[in-house]
């Protein structure tokens, strides 16, 4: 990169506001950014920090009530804020293109892919339809979609999520733009698919020299994709710098707080628990005086931080473009504070609580097409769970990991009694519950097996008060029947989940996402359950909130010795909080063992690929790159042999396609399902390499 080059995009002192009936709401304040040719800029922050607003402002697509209050956005020497609609239209799509969070929603459902792709060059260049078609085909090949001809003739819903996102990327690149905006391009996708897209995006910027602005809440992804990064908080940039300087020496307390919230591969839940940022993101019209972060900051100094709003400042002893918006950054030595969090004790494992033995769940699907009617094959089976075997003990956290469609949620449904198992046993506290529907279970059985759901926003009834909803559960479970006692119990539960007691009278709409999830946890723990299933409990929450909820869940577990069944696709969280891991793929358990066993060789090849796909927000951790090709096969037509054979990078031959892999026992309770011999699998190197403390950059620096 050459700093003498003319910058592609310059945002200068940009202030963006939304105008509503309540008055002007400043969404972004004092934002400055320079993008050089070929450079990738990351913008990171939690929801509501204004990162998407910046992207929309660059596209000049703000909606009716948004507007740029002051400052300028200069793209290749032209101020975008001053352009007419026609001039803007010429720039959009041809010079600046955008890639969106939800690929399916951003493609028109009733137009063929070919139409949607070809119209981009047709609108911007004077070329023939054949030429446009040729270009579109070529681009589909470039984004590594197999069989571009078929994709061209498909409708969006006929493609998988990863394929759709590749199509959207192809659409963005068709007119060879000089700037590409990516707004959380992989958030809606699975980890292994995400890894593929991230690699593609990186290749593209190299191949075409496209500058990129990459918006994400995930620090690990930013690290993997970007050259420079901007950390935003409550509408302003609080710190900017190159990946190296900012990730190695974060200077702003908020940046540091973010890092403390994400579990790194070195983190241990007992020795170094996550340190959530206290308090909440202020609403735009409730921003405090002075530094916006000061009410949540540990280094707040009265009379200094809460007086005037101040500008970004260059960090004295760091790279030239490392700047920070903090008056006290010199006095704060963040390094001294790492690893200083309170220590928590590990739980002793108790009795066996859950025993899953050869559990199967098949769904019947009726095929009503004429073809099926004639051939007589009307009923087909979706094999959602195939011979699941595993156990969980009291106080243990068992994580079930796998991509969407692997059958992990189906298993949770069978456990909860929402579905009946087809074969095999699921013993909870010694009783087989696999074919007892939840309606036929006694209140006590229901109370002892509870669930925390993924989306806290939809799981609370919007028209009942919080207190009413929890009281009802307590009454139903038969924990208490006396009114006063129920009230006391609700109060206690609110204390347990660390919410103020007057939340009893509130309605769900008055709560933030994190608070709602706490209520969800309180509800699950109302009947003193022996086991709680948490289905992606924090994936819908922001990083700092997620850390707090995760810690809370573990504190309660520690106190009540609850068995926690943690369903997740996020291996870094799983690595951090679980004792044992079950890796699922297409309804099969491919590997199970303790967390240490899963994260070290021998690996099942799928586990290996999953580990490689986890973005890690630590520049000194190195990973072996394994990118899976192809799509998850349909559960209606799973491969005959090993379920993973169609995408496996270690496939050894026909045996993988034709014969189901044997279960190989490595040690007690560590089982791998694979045709490759254990000796060979043991030869495989570690996927993630974490440097020792002594090898660390800042350790070397201080010597």
């Amino acid at each position, binding site marked *: 990169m050459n700093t003498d080059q003319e910058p592609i995009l310059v945002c200068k002192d940009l202030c963006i506001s939304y105008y509503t009936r309540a008055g002007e709401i400043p969404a972004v304040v004092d934002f400055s950014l320079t993008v050089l040719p070929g450079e990738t800029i990351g913008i990171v922050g939690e929801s509501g920090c204004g990162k998407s607003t910046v992207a929309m402002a660059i596209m000049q697509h703000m909606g009716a009530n948004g507007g740029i209050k002051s400052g300028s956005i200069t793209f290749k020497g032209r101020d975008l804020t001053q352009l007419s609609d026609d001039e803007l239209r010429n720039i959009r*799509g041809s010079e600046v293109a955008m890639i969106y969070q939800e690929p399916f929603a951003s493609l*028109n459902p009733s137009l063929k892919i070919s139409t949607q792709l070809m119209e*981009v060059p047709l*609108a911007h260049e004077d070329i023939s339809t054949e030429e446009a078609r040729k270009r579109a085909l070529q681009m589909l090949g470039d984004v590594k979609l197999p069989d571009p001809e078929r994709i061209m003739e498909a*409708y969006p819903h006929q493609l998988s999520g990863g394929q759709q996102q590749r199509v959207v990327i192809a659409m963005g690149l068709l007119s060879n733009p000089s700037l590409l905006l990516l707004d959380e391009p992989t958030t809606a996708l699975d980890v292994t698919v995400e890894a593929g897209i991230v690699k593609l995006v990186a290749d593209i910027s190299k191949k075409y020299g496209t500058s990129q602005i990459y918006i994400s809440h995930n620090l690990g992804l930013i690290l993997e994709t970007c050259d420079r990064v901007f950390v935003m908080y409550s509408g302003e940039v609080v710190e900017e710098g190159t990946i190296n300087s900012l990730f190695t020496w974060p200077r702003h307390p908020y940046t540091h707080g973010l890092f403390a919230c994400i579990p790194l591969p070195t983190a241990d839940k007992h020795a170094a628990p996550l340190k959530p940022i206290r308090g909440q993101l202020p609403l735009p019209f409730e921003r405090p005086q002075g530094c916006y972060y000061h009410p949540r900051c540990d280094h707040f100094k009265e009379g200094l931080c809460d007086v005037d709003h101040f500008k970004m400042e260059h960090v004295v002893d760091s790279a030239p473009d490392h700047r920070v918006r903090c008056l006290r950054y010199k006095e704060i030595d963040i390094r001294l504070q790492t690893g200083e969090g309170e220590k928590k004790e590990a739980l002793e494992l108790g009795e066996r609580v859950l025993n899953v033995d050869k559990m199967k769940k098949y769904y019947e699907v009726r095929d009503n097409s004429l073809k099926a009617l004639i051939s007589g094959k009307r009923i087909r089976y979706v094999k959602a769970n195939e011979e699941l075997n595993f156990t969980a003990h009291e106080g243990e956290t068992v994580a079930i990991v796998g991509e969407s469609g692997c059958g992990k949620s189906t298993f949770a449904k069978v456990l909860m009694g929402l579905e009946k198992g087809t074969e095999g046993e699921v013993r909870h506290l010694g009783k087989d519950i696999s074919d007892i529907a939840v309606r036929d279970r006694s209140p006590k059985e229901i109370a002892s097996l509870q669930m925390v759901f993924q989306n806290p926003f939809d799981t609370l009834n919007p028209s009942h008060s919080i207190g009413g909803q929890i009281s009802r559960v307590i009454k139903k479970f038969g924990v208490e029947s006396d009114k006063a006692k129920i009230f006391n119990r609700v109060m206690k539960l609110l204390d347990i989940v660390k919410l103020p007691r007057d939340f009893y009278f509130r309605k769900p709409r008055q709560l933030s996402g994190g608070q709602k999830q706490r209520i969800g946890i309180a509800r699950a723990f109302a009947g003193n359950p022996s086991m709680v299933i948490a289905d992606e409990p924090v994936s819908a929450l922001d990083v700092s909130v997620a850390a707090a909820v995760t810690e809370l869940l573990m504190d309660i577990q520690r106190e009540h010795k609850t068995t926690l069944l943690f369903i997740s696709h996020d291996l870094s969280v799983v690595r951090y909080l679980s004792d044992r891991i079950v890796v699922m793929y297409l309804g099969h358990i491919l590997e199970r063992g303790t967390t240490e066993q899963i994260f070290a060789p021998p690996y099942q090849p799928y586990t290996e690929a999953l580990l490689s796909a986890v973005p890690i927000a630590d520049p000194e951790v190195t990973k072996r790159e394994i990118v899976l090709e192809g799509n998850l096969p349909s559960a209606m037509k799973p491969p005959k042999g090993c379920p993973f054979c169609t995408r496996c990078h270690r496939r050894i031959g026909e045996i993988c396609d034709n014969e189901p892999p044997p279960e190989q026992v490595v040690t007690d309770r560590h089982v791998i399902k694979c045709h490759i011999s254990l000796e060979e699998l043991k030869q495989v190197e570690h996927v993630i390499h974490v440097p020792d403390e002594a090898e660390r950059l800042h350790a070397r620096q201080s010597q």
Partner: protein
Amino acid sequence: MVTLIAKRFGFMVFTMIVVSLILFILLETDLTGDPAIRVLGQFSNEEQRELWREKHGYNQPMLLRYVKWLGNFATGDLGESIRFKGPVADVMLPRLWNTAILGFWTFAIMIPLSLTLGVLSGMKEGSKLDRSISVFGILTTSVPEFASAVIFSALFVFTLKWLPGTSSMSGGFEFKQLILPALVLIVYDFGYVARMTRASMAEVMTSQYIRTAILKGLPYKSVIVKHALRNALIAPFTVIMLQINWLLSGVIVVEFFFAYKGFGALILEASLNNDIALLEACAMVAVCVAVTTQTLADIGYTFLNPRIRFS
């Protein structure tokens, strides 16, 4: 697709049989009074009634009568109308044709008008154009047909003297006579379809794929015509298909008011005069049209929506 059509067709036949059975029980059996009295009047004597029953086969077992009745229906023998003294088919078909003409012109004007205005107002929700169209739509829809018929007559017939006040077409078909009944229908129905279109269009305009299309740098016209319209018209299409039903039998007031010799007026006349055979035939035709439009709406919907077509 073939199975869908076959299924819908089977369902259609099934519905018609059920309706015919209900009709038969209501009108042709003693359940709701003696059919002989209904036809011959209450001043007929028992002897006359017995003769009538014998002649028309009413003494046969009920099931046999139903099967015969249904068979006659299916082969086009709809019976004799007492009121018009002739075969039902000869009476009904011209009336049906007249209503079809009225319906055609109503649709020919109402649909393009309401779709255009609906799309225009849905394109920019909350704009001045949107608000004026919406208010106008609510206004026209909330005035019932009998009121607007009176108002239009007062205006165009009595004050301006532009149009004839009746549409009986006694001197042969005259287009001028068609204008007022069609106008009343258009004004009444326009607001409804326009509002449905507006809601559908407004929803599409806020969708992410429209944002994608705009940010691709497509001309605004192309965003609307190519990306928005197709998706926005799926919902109104179903609504429009259902309006055909309403036009067939819901227009009694208008046809009666303007003395237009249409299907709705025929139903009214048949029921006022206890003309059972005619009533049965009219009811069956109405049901047939209702089920057919439903089926067409379902099939059309799948055609418009590729997500259903290819899954």
